[in-house]
């Protein structure tokens, strides 16, 4: 066949299909830092920590395998585990719903076309932003101290002699819950943004039909906001499980008085870096992962019944 003579002249404009290497290399090059971090600082350590959780390890001697001993101790014979878990669950169950309720209430109020919205929004957001800094924990410790400002106010306004909040085990955890509620700003901002996403014509149509305010709220606002409520609830709960700094600073690292503020993470920290029981602490960490995972899975399952999606 006479191919040669009639071959197209402009061969050079015909591009070869890139090789597999040329196609994939840039992506992997851009991801290189992430890969090092993922394998070296996340996946690798996670696997090592799973291994350590079956060992006894104090950093000095080589870890030696103890099978399920750590988990067995957690499940049966560890009073501190039980009390720290109780404290943490109580904290989560009290602080998260109240925090979200405040966030939603204020967001609804601010969304009603309020003059000075940016100022109010800023004021309510500020405490959450200052968040977990030591200064805020120190401040809280002084406010709720025996002769702190809370008791001063209680005395002047209500004539009550307040307890010594921080050093009384019956009240100490409540001060941390109040601190968490005070920081409702960041879920509030997310609620505000969520409220903005609700199409205004829905409201117009509803009010034309003569629907009452309560009806509009329960039939339009609340259902359309459920994805945002769900997101906030999951994020805030996971964060609450991980709370550390306020409890550490307010109790000077002890979790006292009588373990009343011994958060789970604080107990984990004490085991790992106080007693250097690294294997046991790794097991505690995995138990936390399981608890958070179970909670999250449960949330996602329940979401089917109450979270409203358009499509």
């Amino acid at each position, binding site marked *: 066949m006479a191919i040669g003579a009639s071959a197209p002249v402009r061969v050079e404009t015909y591009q070869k299909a890139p090789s597999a290497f040329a196609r994939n290399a840039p992506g992997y090059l*851009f991801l290189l830092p*992430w890969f*090092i971090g993922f394998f070296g*600082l996340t996946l690798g350590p996670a696997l090592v920590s799973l291994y350590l959780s079956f060992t006894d390890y104090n950093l000095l001697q080589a870890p030696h395998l103890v099978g399920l001993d750590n988990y067995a101790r957690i499940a049966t014979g560890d009073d501190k585990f039980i009390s720290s878990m109780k404290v943490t669950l109580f904290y989560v169950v009290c602080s998260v719903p109240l925090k979200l309720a405040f966030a939603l209430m204020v967001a609804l109020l601010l969304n009603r076309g309020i003059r000075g919205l940016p100022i109010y929004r800023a*004021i309510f957001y500020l405490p959450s932003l200052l968040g977990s800094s*030591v200064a805020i924990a120190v401040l809280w410790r002084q406010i709720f101290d025996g002769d702190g400002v809370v008791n001063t106010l209680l005395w002047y306004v209500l004539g009550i002699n307040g307890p010594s909040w921080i050093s009384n085990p019956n009240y100490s955890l409540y001060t941390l819950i109040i601190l968490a509620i005070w920081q409702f700003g960041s879920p509030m901002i997310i609620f505000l943004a969520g409220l903005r996403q609700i199409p205004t014509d829905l409201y117009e149509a509803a009010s034309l039909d003569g629907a009452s305010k309560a009806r509009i709220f329960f039939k339009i606002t609340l259902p359309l906001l459920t994805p945002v409520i769900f997101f906030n609830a999951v994020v805030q709960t996971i964060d609450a499980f991980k709370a550390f700094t306020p409890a550490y600073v307010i109790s000077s690292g002890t979790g006292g008085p009588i373990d009343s503020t011994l958060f789970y993470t604080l107990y984990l920290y004490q085991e790992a870096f106080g007693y250097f029981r690294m294997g046991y602490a*790794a097991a505690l960490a995995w138990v936390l992962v399981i608890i958070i995972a179970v909670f999250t899975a449960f949330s996602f399952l329940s979401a089917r019944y109450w979270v409203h999606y358009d499509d």
Partner: protein
Amino acid sequence: MTDAKLTHFPDDLNPPRERPWFLSLIIHVALVGASIVMLYPLLWMLSGSIKDQNEIFGTASLIPSQFDFSSFARGWFGGQVTFGTFVWNSVVIAVLSVIGNVISCSLAAYAFARLNFWGKNFWFALMLGTLMLPYHVTLIPQYILFLKLGWVKTMLPLVVPKFLAVDAFFIFLMVQFFRGIPRELDEAAMMDGCSPWRIYWRIMLPLSLPVLATAAIFSFIWTWDDFFGPLIYLSDINTYTVQLGLRSFVDSTGSSDWSSLFAMSSISLIPVFLIFLFFQRLLIDGIATAGLKR
């Protein structure tokens, strides 16, 4: 997934409505009252720093009977090392963290948002998975790793990971933003023979300044506020960050010098407060977007 970028949430979307004046009044009274409750603790701390020792407790008033600024000098110079050392250490760690996070996370985000390669969806799912993983799981092996590397008692464990894109939240935020940038831009550039690197550097980054700024600001604030990391890795007082310095200050002064404790607490909040003041819009849009667009 919605096509998302950091949209600017306008404040006048819901313009002030006509409503009976007394209703407006009630709402504003409620909001002002709530604002006072929110700000009172912070103002009380600030005023405590210029009050006389005996005046801090037993009164709820914010205005001191006489202004005494000596607490700032006592707090700053009072310890084994001056508070300036802590501030300097915190600034160094925070600035390096910002640089590390912005560079490494934007590289990863660009790959996930714009490049095609084998296994991309798999890696992306893994990256999102790390968002959910509590850091406690990796904490102990990471500590052992840094101990074996001889990095414990230095700032390296606090800074180096930031250059390795460990904060998946920022990658996620940037991916969302990058996806909102018109594809035609980099496709045209690719036609012209631009390398992915040039596209990333000359097109994506300049167009992404808002999200990069948001990530930088959050990165700074979170590093500045971080207590746990420094608590574990820093044990020499000369390397302490502001948070650790403040904590040791609490322990060492015990229950004696409240006003200087409040003075140093106030100082430790200043950078976050200033950033908040100047970049409020970016912070609020950032957090709103991250929450909404999943």
